[in-house]
C-alpha cells in the first residue's frame, strides 16, 4: 500500500503531467503548421473524448494554455489534447490556400483589382445621396454586384437612379427592407452593374414599387 501510494505522490504527478502537457503542446504546434483544419478538429468536441465525470474544476483551476501567435494556433485543454482525433478520417479536406488564423482563402490580386476599380466608379454616385452607403462590392461572379444601403426607400431610389445613370441603364437590382436590433431600420439593394442588354432593369418612378418581390 505504501509503495502504491508513493506512485501517486504529488511530485510524480507533477512530472508526469509536465511531460504530457509539453508533449501535447508540441503535438498541437506541429499539427497547427501542417494542417489548419486539424486545429479545429483537435479542439472540437471529440466523440469519445476522455472525460472524468464528477471532477469539478473551478475557474481558478481551469488550466491555462500555451500560445504561439495569432488567434488560432492554440493548444486545446488537456482533456482534448489527449483525446483521440476520431474525426481525422472524416474531414480530409481543407479549403485550399488557407493559412494560420483564417478559415477562408484570401482574395486574389485580380479580384482585389477588379473590386477596387468598381468601388472607385460607384462611390461618387452613392455618396451623392445623403445617408447612403456601399456595404461591399463582390466580383466573385461577373458582372460584379454591389450591396448598398439607404435610410429610406426614396433615398435608395436616388442611389439606384444615380447608378443606372453611371452605367447607362445597364443595372439590375433587388431591394429589401432591413431590420436590425443593433443597426436599426434601412433599405438595401443588391445591384448588379454592367448587365447585358435585355437584362437591365429600369428604376421605377414610385419608390414603393421597389419593394415588390419578384
Amino acid at each position: 500500500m505504501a509503495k502504491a501510494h508513493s506512485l501517486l505522490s504529488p511530485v510524480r504527478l507533477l512530472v508526469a503531467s509536465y511531460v504530457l502537457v509539453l508533449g501535447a503542446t508540441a503535438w498541437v504546434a506541429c499539427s497547427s503548421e501542417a494542417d489548419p483544419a486539424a486545429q479545429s478538429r483537435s479542439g472540437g468536441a471529440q466523440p469519445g473524448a476522455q472525460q472524468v465525470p464528477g471532477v469539478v474544476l473551478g475557474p481558478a483551476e481551469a488550466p491555462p494554455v500555451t500560445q504561439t501567435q495569432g488567434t488560432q494556433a492554440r493548444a486545446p485543454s488537456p482533456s482534448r489534447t489527449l483525446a483521440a482525433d476520431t474525426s481525422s478520417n472524416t474531414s480530409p479536406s481543407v479549403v485550399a490556400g488557407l493559412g494560420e488564423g483564417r478559415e477562408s482563402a484570401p482574395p486574389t490580386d485580380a479580384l482585389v483589382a477588379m473590386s477596387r476599380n468598381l468601388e472607385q466608379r460607384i462611390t461618387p454616385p452613392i455618396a451623392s445621396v445623403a445617408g447612403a452607403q456601399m456595404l461591399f462590392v463582390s466580383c466573385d461572379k461577373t458582372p460584379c454586384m454591389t450591396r448598398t444601403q439607404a435610410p429610406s426607400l426614396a433615398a435608395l431610389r436616388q442611389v439606384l437612379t444615380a447608378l443606372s445613370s453611371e452605367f447607362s441603364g445597364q443595372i439590375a437590382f433587388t431591394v429589401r427592407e432591413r431590420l436590425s436590433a443593433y443597426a436599426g431600420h434601412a433599405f438595401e439593394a443588391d445591384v448588379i452593374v454592367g448587365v447585358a442588354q435585355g437584362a437591365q432593369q429600369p428604376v421605377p418612378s414610385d419608390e414603393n414599387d421597389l419593394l415588390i418581390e419578384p
Partner: protein
Amino acid sequence: MQTRKRITFNHAWISVGQWVRVPQHRRGLVLGGTALVVALTSSALVSSGGDLGIVRNVEGSEIARIGAHIVQNTLTNLVAQGHNDQALDQAFEIGDELFAAHFNAGDGSGANVGNGSRFTRMPRADLIGSKQWATHVPSRATGPNTQACTDCHSKPADDGAGEASTNVHRDGNHTARFNQMVQRNTPHVFGLGGLQRLAEEMTVDLKAIRNSARAFVNCGTVRAATSVTNNLVSKGVNFGSITVSHDNNLSTCRETLNPPATGAALALSSDLVVRPFQWKGSVAFIRDFVRGAAHNEIGMQASELLGSPSVDPAGVDGDGDGVPNELFVGDITALTVYQADQPRPTTRQELAGVGLIPALSATENSDIADGSLVFDRTGCGNCHVRRLTVNDVIFREPSANADFRDTGNLFPNGRTFSSSNFDPNNAIHFDITQDAQENNTVNAANGQPLGAFQRDSQGHAVIELFGDLRRHDMGPKLAEEIDEVGTGKSVFMTENLWGVGSTAPYLHDGRAATLTEAILEHDGEGKAARDAFVASSTTAQQHLVAFLNNMVLFKLEE
C-alpha cells in the same frame, strides 16, 4: 431520420429556480490541478509580442481553453460525409463552451471604447476618434458591456433570461442623447430551434397566400385593372391581409399589407417574413441574433461581419482592440446550433409529474387549473397563443429557407457562403422532437424526451409558445422615444410566455418586477385583456398568476 447518438449527462438536478449548470470545461479534466502549475510554466516558455500576448500567456485564452476555433469546413465535411451526428455534437459542445466563456483581451473581448475603456454600459457615440466607439465596424449600438453570454443570460441559470441590472442600452442612431436611446431586457434562449422553425413555416404559408393573390389577378400579364385581398393566416394566427392590385393595361401589380384589425399595427413587414427574435420582431434567424450580440454586447466580432470579398476579414480589427478574426464562421455556427438545440421550456406540473421536483399540492394544481380558465376568459390567449405546431420537425443551420439565412448566400461582409464551405445543402440538422442535447435523459409523461418538443399524433412538433409571433401596438404607455426598427414606437412582438415563471422582470425594458405589473402595463391592442384582468376577482387574478408561474425553465445538471 436515423436515431442519433445522445450525449449522456448525469441525472443530478436541482429544483427549479435554483439549478446550477456546471460547464463541462470545469469538469473531468484529466490532469487536474497539477496541470495548472505545469501549463503555467509551459505558457511562460512561449514568447509572444505585445501586451495581448502577455495576457494570453499569463491568463490563457478562452478560445484556447475551448480548444481552438472551430472551422466551418470541418463541420460541413462531417455532414457531407454522412456524419451529421458528429457535426451536431461537436457544434453543440463548442457552442456550449463559447456561450459560457468569459473572454478576455487576448481573445478580443471588449473593444476600444475610447479613453482607455474596454467596456461600457452606456453607448458612447461621443467618442468619434479613430477606432473609438462611434467608428467601429460594423456600426455599434451598445456595449461592449460584458465578457460572456452567460453574464446576461443567467436567470434562473445559464441560457436563461436577465435581471434588470443586465439591461442593455442602445443608441442605434449614434445621437449620444439619452432620450434617443432604448433599453432592452435579456430574454431566455430556450427552445429557439422550434421557434425559428415555426417562423419559417409561417413565412412559407404567408408567401404562398400572397403568390396566390398575384396569380389570381394575373400579375405579369397585361390586363385591365383589378384587385384581390387575401387574408394572411398561418397556423391559425391572423397576420392581417394583403391586397394585390393589378395596374390598368399594364403587367405590373401593387401590393398593400393591411393590419389584422382597425387600429392595430401591421403584424409583420412587407416581405412577409415572420421575424421571431428581438423585442420588436426584427431578427429572423438565430445566427443573425448571435453575431449581433457577440459584437455589440461582448465585443467578440464574427469574421463574417468584417472585411469584404476583396478585403480579407482575417486581417480586419473592426473594434480597434488589437485582435482580428475573433470568431470564425464555424464558431458562429456552433453558437447558433447550441442555442437552436436548447431544451424547450416546461412546467412545474410536468416536472412534478416525472418526479423531478416535489409534487405540487392539490391547492396549487387547482389554482393553476383555474388560472388557465382565467387566461382564456380574459382574452390573454388571443395574442399569447397557447400552442402552435411545426410540420417539418428538422432544424437546419444554415436554414433551407432562404429568408432565414443571409441574403443571396452572402455573409454580411459580402463573402460567399462557399468561401467558408458554409453549405445549405450540407446543413447541420436535428429533429426538434427527438434530438435534444439536454434534458434528454428523462422522459415526459408521454414517453418522449423532456427536453425535446412533444410530437403530436400526426408527427408534428407542438410548440407551447404562448405567443403569436405578431407585432402589436401596445399603446402609449409602452411607447419608446424612438422608433428602433421602423415598426412604430409602441409596437412590439407578443412576448412568448413559455418559461415566464422563471424570467422576471418583464417587458422589453424589465420595468415590471412581477407578472401582475406586466399585465397592468398592457394597453393598445392589449387593453381589453388588461381591463378584463382588472375586472376579475383578486382570487382569479392570483390564479392567473399561478398559471403563468407554472411555466418555467429547467435543465438537468450536465
